[in-house]
């Protein structure tokens, strides 16, 4: 299996998509826009969260602010730059693998770090090996445990051997955590190969970058300067946009879109994404472990109400499984669960749970969960279940409440592949197997699909896994939430990339400013 200019598995395997070779050799440089982008301009961008834990170390990135900052300063071996989610070559010119276990990366020549030194295989080996060092505290340590061996193969070649077959490695390498830093920097200081150089960095307050004049992809970036700040309060963020203090921001509440859109100078960009907030029902505790209870809860979720009232239709109705209709491998044959209070009541009675009182833990940490819990409580009272909403602070939610009670809410960011989402959240051995369910058939299918070369077969496997999760898993997923960015209309070239807000956090390299 050789992947050249186009890294998609499908381009090699599925004949129809094998449009390789059309792409320029410039790496991540396929989609140039018709109108010639203008050079120059300085913008201020606001994300929704920052803290003193803000970092210049890609391995430690945990907030959208970190991802945006890291993508401005560093490059990855691959990158994802459009809604197809197909990984494209970036610092790696080619990626080859015969068995999807041992991978060979050939690096771009002549790429320079901001300090002038040349990118070599040594930097790549160092950057990838860091994730296995517990002292680094990498967010991708679990994924990195699949790396069996990483070594240099000459000045520009890197060999990565996995513990098992994984056809998705090119996609994994496009994750913000796997960006390439300078060899030897135990705490990276922003010296990368990326489109911008670091000018100022103050954790929790601001990041300022200026254009890297010697960027290795010619003609980019267009902006002269980007200032990145965080405005955690949503109302303040929207106000800042509307008063011209910032030119781009993310995480706009669906209820605020009307405010942005009435002003002709501003617009919102909705990115349909696989982001979801889910209700977790622990299978190893009672009464949530009761199959009838789980069924009853899934039947009493008023998905259209959640979509309409909570998200003002900036959402896609989901079906208690994590693959969204617009994603590859989505299985349309799984029947959609709809609100049916009579059936729900029947299940509650069959489980002998009428009148039982159950706390549901919700928090602003899991977007929309507090209101979802209120809705659940209201409908629960109609079928004989007495839910008590327990709103807890976002502070400490993930470590103390999430998955720790029979019923709590989780929140899952979009992941680039079906394999990642299934292995991180649904594998029975996964740390985040939220509901603690165990399904041997599912686990077997997961391993099989990960190494499967035949695309059609892979689709079938993922299709069946979706059905199993929908029928058996103790997780209820009401809707997929669209990401909403707000921007000044003079900012051009933005387009949705379903991985995250801000064009999958990578806007800075592509957008330009027109006065």
């Amino acid at each position, binding site marked *: 299996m050789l992947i050249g200019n186009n890294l998609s598995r499908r381009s090699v395997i599925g004949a129809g998509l094998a449009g390789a070779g059309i792409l320029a050799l410039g790496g991540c440089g396929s989609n140039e826009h018709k109108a010639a982008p203008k050079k120059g301009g300085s913008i201020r961008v606001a994300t929704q969260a920052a803290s003193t834990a803000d970092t210049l170390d890609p391995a430690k990135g945990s907030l959208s602010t970190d991802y945006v900052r890291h993508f401005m300063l560093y490059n990855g071996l691959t990158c994802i730059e459009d809604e197809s989610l197909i990984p494209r070559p970036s610092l790696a010119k080619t990626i080859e693998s015969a068995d999807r276990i041992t991978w060979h990366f050939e690096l771009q020549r002549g790429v320079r770090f901001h300090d002038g030194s040349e990118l070599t295989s040594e930097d790549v080996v160092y950057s990838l090996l860091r994730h296995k060092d517990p002292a680094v505290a990498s967010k991708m340590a679990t994924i990195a445990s699949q790396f069996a061996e990483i070594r240099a193969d000459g000045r520009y070649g890197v060999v990565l051997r996995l513990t098992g077959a994984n056809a998705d490695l090119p996609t994994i390498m496009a994750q913000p955590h796997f960006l390439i830093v300078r060899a030897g920097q135990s705490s990276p200081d922003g010296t990368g190969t990326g489109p911008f150089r670091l000018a100022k960095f*103050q954790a929790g307050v601001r990041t300022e970058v200026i254009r890297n004049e010697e960027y290795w992809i010619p003609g980019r970036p267009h902006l002269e300067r980007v200032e990145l700040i965080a405005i955690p309060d949503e109302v303040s963020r929207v106000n800042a946009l509307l008063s011209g*203090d910032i030119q781009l921001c993310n995480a706009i509440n669906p209820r605020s879109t009307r405010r942005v859109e009435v002003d002709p100078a501003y617009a919102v960009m909705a990115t349909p994404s696989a982001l979801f907030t889910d209700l977790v029902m622990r299978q190893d505790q009672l009464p949530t472990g009761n199959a009838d209870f789980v069924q009853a809860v899934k039947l009493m979720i008023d998905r259209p109400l959640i979509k309409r009232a909570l998200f003002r239709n900036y959402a896609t109705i989901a079906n208690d499984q994590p693959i969204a209709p617009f994603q590859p491998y989505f299985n349309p044959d799984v029947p959609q669960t709809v609100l049916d209070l009579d059936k729900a009541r029947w299940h509650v009675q069959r489980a002998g749970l009428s009148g039982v009182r159950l706390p549901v833990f919700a928090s602003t940490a899991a977007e929309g969960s507090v209101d979802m819990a209120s809705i659940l409580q209201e409908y629960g009272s109609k079928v004989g279940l007495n839910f008590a909403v327990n709103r807890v602070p976002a502070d400490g939610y993930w470590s103390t409440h999430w998955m720790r009670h029979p019923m709590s809410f989780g929140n899952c960011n979009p992941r680039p592949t079906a394999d990642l989402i299934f292995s991180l959240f649904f594998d029975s051995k996964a*740390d*985040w197997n939220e509901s603690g369910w165990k399904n041997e058939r599912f686990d077997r299918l997961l391993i099989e699909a990960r190494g499967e070369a035949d695309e059609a077969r892979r689709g079938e496997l993922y299709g069946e896994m979706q059905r199993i999760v929908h029928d058996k898993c103790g997780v209820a997923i009401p809707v997929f939430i669209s990401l909403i960015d707000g921007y000044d209309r003079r900012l051009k070239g933005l387009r949705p990339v379903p991985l995250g807000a801000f064009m999958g956090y990578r806007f800075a390299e592509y957008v330009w400013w027109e006065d």
Partner: protein
Amino acid sequence: MSAPEKPQSSLAKLVPLIGKRVLSSLLTLFLVSLVIFTVSGLLPGDAAQELLGQSATPEQVASLRHEMGLDRPAHVRYVDWLGGIVRGNAGMSYVANMPVGQIISNRLPNSLTLAGITAVISTVIALTIGISSAINRGGKLDSMLNITTLSLVAMPEFLIATLGVLVFSVKLLWLPSIALVTPDASWGQMLRSMALPVFSLTCVVVAQMARMTRAAVADQLDRPYVEMAKLKGVPFSRIVLFHVMPNAVGPVVNAMALSLSYLMGGAIIVETIFNFPGLASLMVNAVTSRDMPLLQSCAMIFCATYLALMLVADIVAILANPRLRA
């Protein structure tokens, strides 16, 4: 209110007072650090867990905990911190990988500037309102000012701030909606971006100060000596400024000191809405990231500020009031 030629006796009185206060302040600071340490020990999770976040595996947490020294017993960590602070070393932040002193020195000037400007403006307004309504006790002006100050306190802080932004930033485009405090900003820029936060905070504190002033001044105006001075033909403005105010200054300065100390630590809502990089939001950040050394230092600063302001208020009251001075 400065008193250039004070008789020796008042200064001689002040020195032991200050000495005693400084000593008892040390006791209070110690108590605060103890309370903060105990209460924050009740928080679920620790810095290692919060830093690794949702994705933490138990091994990672354990290794990071060891690296941070969090696996030592609580009292050892406390004594360690206390030893550091006594030697003037606030320690390293668990999370930001920087000395606490450096983080705070980035933020402290912001908070001081915000509190300072607000204090000056609200003091002027409060004194004006308080004195004019005290002079016109029972009159039209008095009830009008009374209603104004009352309606200011009656609105939640965040609503005042939000309305301010909607009117002055979004609608009129006069002022920035967020405080963009950069070290290299000019004074003009800084004042502009501080305008709305100062406006909101002034609304919060001015009412209480004005009402205290009115009460204290009104109380003095009813005293016989005022009547006497009037009969002697002393101009009324002179009576208010030179006879009434020195006597009323105690409670007024006290109320101001309390408001000022509120401006340092209590500005969390205004800091959130205007994205103002001040100390209160830093402290909240320290709570959420379980950054003990940073949290402790913030608490120490707030406590020291409060105690210092109280001391200053007392000294001013003594120096200004001839009867206390004697």
